[in-house]
């Protein structure tokens, strides 16, 4: 079965018919293809977090429909029977360390799979496997999650979502508040899952470098609307537009833009440091950069 996620004219209003009514999404159309690495960017309050809660039916649209695999979620969809969707689409929320509650790390990671009917032994096996995947060794299994450092707690929480073995992994600013090394390591783990396990990844982030380095498709949101979408190459060409929207530009593109102002000529602005380095080498007549 193909696990595409498609939004058709999705509207969402918080607390309709109250004085606190707030519209968050306006007729959003969007497609997340199976096996893709999609990035959602936009300001705080642009509706990213609302949108991602639609990806596993935590929120139901107040208008339009969301197609998740073979399921269609409309405003009338019943709240029952959504578990299969939640198993397929795992969400790592912002600051996921706040969701830990069990006595031991192992039990906490096993909690998700057990909710979806995996036996206890199997779930504990998964816990061990996923803990290793996020870079913590077995000695952590029997420790209390509350005695760990912030970064370790984050890893445990992410392992807890990975243990559900979702087909689609949704990440809401997974590296916020981590140190540079931890940030890099986490992003590489997700990249490996995407490459090796063909996992579909949806990344919500403010870091344009992550988008440039990893994503193959970008949606730009503004005030609940999709204002631009396309491959990172396309979206990041328009540096002025991005700056005007205060969205930020990948460091390499920004540097290239400055070089352009000084007379350098690019066919296409480079997005990553490798691309930029290649270009510089080519210009200086050197050998093409090889890894």
């Amino acid at each position, binding site marked *: 079965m193909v696990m595409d996620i498609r939004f058709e004219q999705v509207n969402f209003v*918080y*607390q309709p018919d*109250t*004085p*606190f009514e707030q519209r968050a999404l306006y007729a959003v159309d969007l497609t997340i293809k199976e096996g893709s690495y999609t990035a959602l960017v936009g300001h705080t309050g642009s509706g990213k977090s609302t949108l991602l*809660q639609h990806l*596993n039916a*935590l929120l139901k649209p107040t208008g339009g429909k969301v197609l998740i695999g073979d399921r269609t979620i409309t405003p009338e969809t019943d709240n*029952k029977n959504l*578990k299969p969707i*939640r*198993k397929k689409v*795992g*969400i790592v*929320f*912002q600051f*996921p360390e*706040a*969701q*830990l*509650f069990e006595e031991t790390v192992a039990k906490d990671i096993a*909690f*998700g799979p057990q*909710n*979806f009917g995996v036996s206890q032994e199997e779930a504990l096996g998964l816990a061990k496997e996923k803990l290793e995947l996020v870079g913590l060794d077995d000695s952590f299994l029997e420790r209390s999650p*509350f005695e760990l450092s912030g970064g370790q707690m984050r890893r445990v929480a992410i392992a*807890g*979502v990975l243990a*559900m073995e979702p087909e689609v992994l949704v990440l809401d600013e997974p590296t916020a508040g981590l140190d540079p090394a931890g940030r890099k390591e986490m992003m590489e783990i997700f990249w490996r899952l995407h490459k090796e396990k063909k996992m579909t990844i949806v990344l919500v982030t403010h870091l344009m470098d992550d988008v440039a380095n990893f994503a193959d498709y970008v949606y730009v949101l503004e005030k609940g609307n999709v204002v631009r979408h396309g491959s990172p190459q396309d979206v990041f060409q328009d540096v002025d537009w991005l700056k005007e929207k205060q969205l930020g530009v990948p460091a390499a593109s920004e540097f290239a833009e400055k070089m352009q102002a000084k007379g350098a000529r690019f066919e296409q602005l480079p997005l990553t440091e490798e691309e930029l380095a290649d270009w510089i080498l080519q210009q200086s007549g050197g050998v093409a950069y090889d890894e």
Partner: protein
Amino acid sequence: MMNKLIFGRYIPGDSIIHRLDPRAKLVASFYFIAIIFLANNWQSYLCLGIFTFVAILLSKINLRFFFRGVRPLIWLILFTVILQILFTRGGTLYWSWGVFSLSEYGIQNGLFIFCRFILIIFMSTLLTLTTPPLSMSDAIESLLRPLHVLHVPVHEIALMLSIALRFVPTLMDETEKIMNAQRARGVDFGEGSLIQKVKAVVPLLIPLFVSSFNRAEDLATAMEARGYRGGEGRSKYRILKWSNRDSGVIVVFVIVTIGLIVLRT
């Protein structure tokens, strides 16, 4: 879930009711609840009803929101009213079956209690819809000040109250977030048998408690770092001012009270 609740929330505005001194509003609301019990016939309830209606109009808040405020309590109200109707005897008896009866007094009593509930809810909704929580805690501190003589720690109570009020929305957001995170991990809240429902709350409660402890620790550190040493010798930033408008409220309430005493039988 929680966000459907109107009762107890504040709607910013700039009406005459919004601008009243919170102390006046708080005392007036309590006083109103007390004098409701003076009313015992149609004329007096009508008088209170008109008074409440005028107050709501003055607040410029849509009447709809007041009805929504009643909604969560409607079953409690109906239950009480029906009990009153069925178990009160007196006056003309229309129908009876065993201990149940339908009598003139019963119906009258039921309707009065209904009015009483609605008026109390409307008035307290009006108070909370027009008064920001922080003003409310300032008002409580100011009103409790005389108790200082009896060694009641008024400043501490007010401080806890304002911190608690400040963190209600934050904790609500946090609850919502954790709930969503756990639902994404396959927890069904509010489904299944009673035991299952109670068990499902554990993954919500423990993180909430833990984060409250962390928050409390951070807040205490931040307060100390900013030189907080208790209530002794502190000045105040928000100072409540009693104006003629607020004295006007007292006058209005005196008139209403006299009216009620005249109208009651």
